[in-house]
């Protein structure tokens, strides 16, 4: 294993030479690229990357341009994880046979995918990668919707969110099913590292990514990615939305080591009511009508229950 890059503070981090380029076609204020930059800048090692179909892939590989300064593969919607796992297997085989031209370089294998590509369509591919023990990191850019095709619900879309396939209206408050708990599902493969991250907590992010790069075996990262277009907020407020997400505990930050050791990595000094998080986004606007207000209370209860559960797990080390 190579040494981790030394990043003590933000000034030091800012000396990183980005390997992700501008004039990509992501929306102004898109959190996907903030997350990608934080992940890539966490290491100086060579990178072998993939992206599953989705906003990130579509907007960074518009022929004749690429926004990636690293080896980058795209195949389909479902198989970004296996694409990078294939590259990793080949690398391992060449290393064993002594056929690597530069055996002392330590490339990192990272697969980026949306929640649609991870929670739904690429689910079994990712599960296979985790089970087979590839030395890869799968990073979900979780904007809780199929953003690139116009906002259809995914199994990451939370209750009450209005999506184009589960719209709010006279007879509906929008999405009715609860979000899938992917961090736990992935941890249940007994992988060495599974964690939830947020772009506003860059230090927590870098620490977790570096931890992920230093372990031997598959790593799963779920990154909350506030989407200005589908969550319906002003592009300038992306980081504010990320702050509301972490500080309301709607997106608690934690890690699960070796499938069981759970650590909460961020405890907000002041916990923000879930209502504030919901109120900041157009996709939840209808919940503030009288007939749906009980859903806001239920939201808070769900978030409180999940937080209590995480705390119990942390204490019990299970």
């Amino acid at each position: 294993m190579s040494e981790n890059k030394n990043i003590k503070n933000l000034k030091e981090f800012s000396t990183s030479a980005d390997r992700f380029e501008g004039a990509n076609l992501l929306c102004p204020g898109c959190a996907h690229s903030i997350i990608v930059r934080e992940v890539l800048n966490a290491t100086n090692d060579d990178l072998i990357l993939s992206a599953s179909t989705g906003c990130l892939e579509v907007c960074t590989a518009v022929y004749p341009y690429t926004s990636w300064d690293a080896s980058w593969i795209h195949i389909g919607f479902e198989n970004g994880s296996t694409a990078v796992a294939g590259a990793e297997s080949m690398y391992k085989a060449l290393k064993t046979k002594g056929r690597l031209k530069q055996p002392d370089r330590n490339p990192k294998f990272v697969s980026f995918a949306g929640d649609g590509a991870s929670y739904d369509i690429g689910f079994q591919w990712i599960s296979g990668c985790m089970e087979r023990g590839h030395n890869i990191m799968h990073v979900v850019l979780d904007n809780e919707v199929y953003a690139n095709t116009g906002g259809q619900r995914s199994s990451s879309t939370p209750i009450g969110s209005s999506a184009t396939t589960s719209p709010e209206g006279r007879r509906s408050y929008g999405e009715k099913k609860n979000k899938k708990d992917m961090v736990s599902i992935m941890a249940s493969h007994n992988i060495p590292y599974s964690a939830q991250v947020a772009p506003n907590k860059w230090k927590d992010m870098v620490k977790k990514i570096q931890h992920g790069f230093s372990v031997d075996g598959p790593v799963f990262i779920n990154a909350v990615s506030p989407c200005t277009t589908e969550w319906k907020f002003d592009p300038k407020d992306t980081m504010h939305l990320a702050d509301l997400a972490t500080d309301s505990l709607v997106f608690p930050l934690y890690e699960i080591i070796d499938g069981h050791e759970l650590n909460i990595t961020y405890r907000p000094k002041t916990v923000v009511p879930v209502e504030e998080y919901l109120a900041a986004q157009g996709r939840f606007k209808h919940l503030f009508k009288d007939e749906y207000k009980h859903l806001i209370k239920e939201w808070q209860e769900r978030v409180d229950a999940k937080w209590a559960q995480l705390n119990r797990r942390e204490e019990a080390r299970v």
Partner: protein
Amino acid sequence: MANKGWDEFEIGAMLRTFEGKIDDIAGTLQENRAYSQNSSFVASVADWRIIKPVFNKDFCIDCQFCWVYCPDISIISRDKKMIGIDMDHCKGCGICVEVCPTNPKSLMMFPEKADEETELAAWPAKNEEKK
């Protein structure tokens, strides 16, 4: 590499981001890279903007919040100092202004057509009411 149409592209072809060989990309800053015509770095999205950020270095404390949270790699930081904005790649989202902690702010948004010198000369003073 000469650009081809998508239907002239042979299967398995690669887009090369750089001209020639590059050994230490993570240690090479953008100004020292030999980008090829296939890197989006050589393109511009300046015409997306309707508002633009203006940087006033007098109040900047080089905290680098703008650098880490700019989605478009448009805050230029060198040797731990914020030195300016890459106006070819900035999309005018305004995140950098929101996250700038100084009082008054060291970055503010103005209409795309605003004159930078005029805005800098009229920069607001410290707001005492703010926390």
